[in-house]
């Protein structure tokens, strides 16, 4: 066996090679990651511009719509992609190679995050202009955006790997979109039943929408810093969970 000396790629090379395979899929998935989230979010803003003043306020409405776009572009699209990769044998092919799980996970979330940011930025600026707002860039806003994307992509990947059937994954990924209607992303907590208002206020998506709102249209303070830290922590937990979750290979 000595003459064969098994070789193994460094983790960085593993990540780059898998990322390349993911990049090659862009022509097949761009509409799902980019076009649909952008259209949905812009549609929300257009709808708002046609209606009377929303009780939650325009600033929050734009930040909330951006969060909706993030859920579409990260959670839903990653759940869909990973479930497809599992169904067509791509994950099994990768799992049979001498590679670690972490580079696969990170390669699978990198791309959706990269092109999920674009529709959100378009929304923030086009939406703001449509509603007569003047957003300003702050680093904490970008951090919140990335942490939220990471968290949602991690959750999407968890769903894609956990459920054996694609239909089950699609249903599970649709649930957060539905539940979002009952959280204070696009509504005031006072407009919701008391329990939902309280629980929804501490959900990471709500925290991310809070930070985005203050980072774009106000002066974020200690509370926002705390919230963005919480979102980042949830993102780390989501990715750590998906790295350990069974469903890719049983023995690791």
């Amino acid at each position: 066996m000595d003459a064969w000396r098994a070789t193994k790629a460094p983790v960085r090379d593993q990540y780059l090679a898998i990322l390349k395979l993911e990049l090659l899929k862009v022509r097949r998935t761009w509409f799902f990651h980019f076009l649909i989230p952008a259209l949905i979010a812009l549609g929300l803003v257009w709808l708002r511009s046609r209606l009377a003043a929303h009780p939650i306020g325009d600033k929050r409405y734009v930040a909330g719509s951006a969060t909706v776009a993030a859920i579409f572009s990260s959670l839903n699209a990653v759940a869909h992609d990973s479930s497809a990769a599992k169904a067509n044998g791509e994950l099994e092919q990768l799992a049979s190679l001498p590679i670690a799980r972490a580079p696969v996970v990170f390669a699978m979330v990198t791309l959706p995050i990269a092109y999920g940011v674009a529709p959100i930025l378009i929304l923030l600026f086009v939406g703001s202009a449509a509603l007569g707002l003047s957003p300003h860039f702050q680093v904490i806003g970008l951090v919140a955006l990335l942490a939220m994307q990471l968290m949602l992509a991690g959750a999407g990947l968890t769903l894609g790997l956990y459920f054996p059937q694609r239909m089950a994954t699609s249903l599970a990924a649709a649930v957060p979109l539905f539940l979002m209607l009952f959280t204070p992303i696009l509504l005031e907590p006072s407009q919701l039943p008391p329990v939902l208002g309280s629980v929804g206020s501490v959900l990471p998506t709500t925290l991310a929408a809070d930070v985005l709102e203050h980072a774009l249209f106000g002066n974020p303070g200690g509370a926002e810093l705390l919230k963005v830290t919480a979102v980042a922590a949830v993102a780390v937990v989501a990715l750590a969970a998906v790295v350990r979750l069974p469903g890719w290979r049983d023995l690791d």
Partner: protein
Amino acid sequence: MNAIAVDGLTKVYGRDVRANDAIDLTVPAGALAALLGPNGAGKTTLVRQLMGLLAPTAGRISLAGTDVIAQPSVARELCAYLPQRAVPFLEATVHECVELTARLRGIPRGAAGEMADDEIVRWGLEAHSRRRIRRLSGGERRLVGLAATLVAPRPFLVLDEPTNELDPVNRKLVWQRLAERRASGATVLVITHNVHEIEGVVTYLAVMLAGRVVAEGSPHALRERLGHQRGRLRVSVRGQSGDPPADDGLAWMPEQSAWVGSVERGRAEHIVGAALRRESVTGIRVAEPSLEDVYLHYVAARGEQTEA
């Protein structure tokens, strides 16, 4: 030395579906081994456990003396695996797929590219090298999968139905390439249900039925074992083969101007006598059982057991 040793391997899906049932199997180092069995026999489940993709319910697997269940990364480092399904990286070109596989096996970029070029030529895919896999036929995709499996040589090759969807020329190429790898020291394990293809090619054979390995050994040993009970009778006839040479319930197979059947030794006298009484019969020859006879014998024995 045994390259692959499986001991009491059991895999139960859900509550009571025993895909593998206390399997014992040993594949000698340097063998070109076939795991033969009908659809649903549990062959794929067995190799997926060997690769660490599935966790066994019970039992042990060792690869080159290393416990795969305790150290599953060994399987991925030592084995190149071709899954049953065609290569899935549909958006990659043929070259990208093979080169990236080599890189994921730890070959540096430049060398991986050269290895990919070489492997693509060996499989006759050079005209498709820059084409996306999505645009290839099923057989061409299978060849890409084989190129990706054989790039960056590993000491073990595990291939699940590698000749599916391939034409006869490419099927022959597959066995030729696997024999080459064996000659260079690799141990090759191939899952198949096509008994005709492995005749004269494999050096070790295991027959799997209903989740169990019911026979294993060299083709010679298995033939010899069966030869004590059965012989292969070739009855030559004048002109076209016409009716079977004896109306005895045997599954006679027509060949050009002949009938071939696997005959139980105890009944041979009666069958030969019946055949000789026919005017059209011009000759009778007894040969050692084929691997097909070996396989069918175990399938029939299993059927009788189940009925009993």
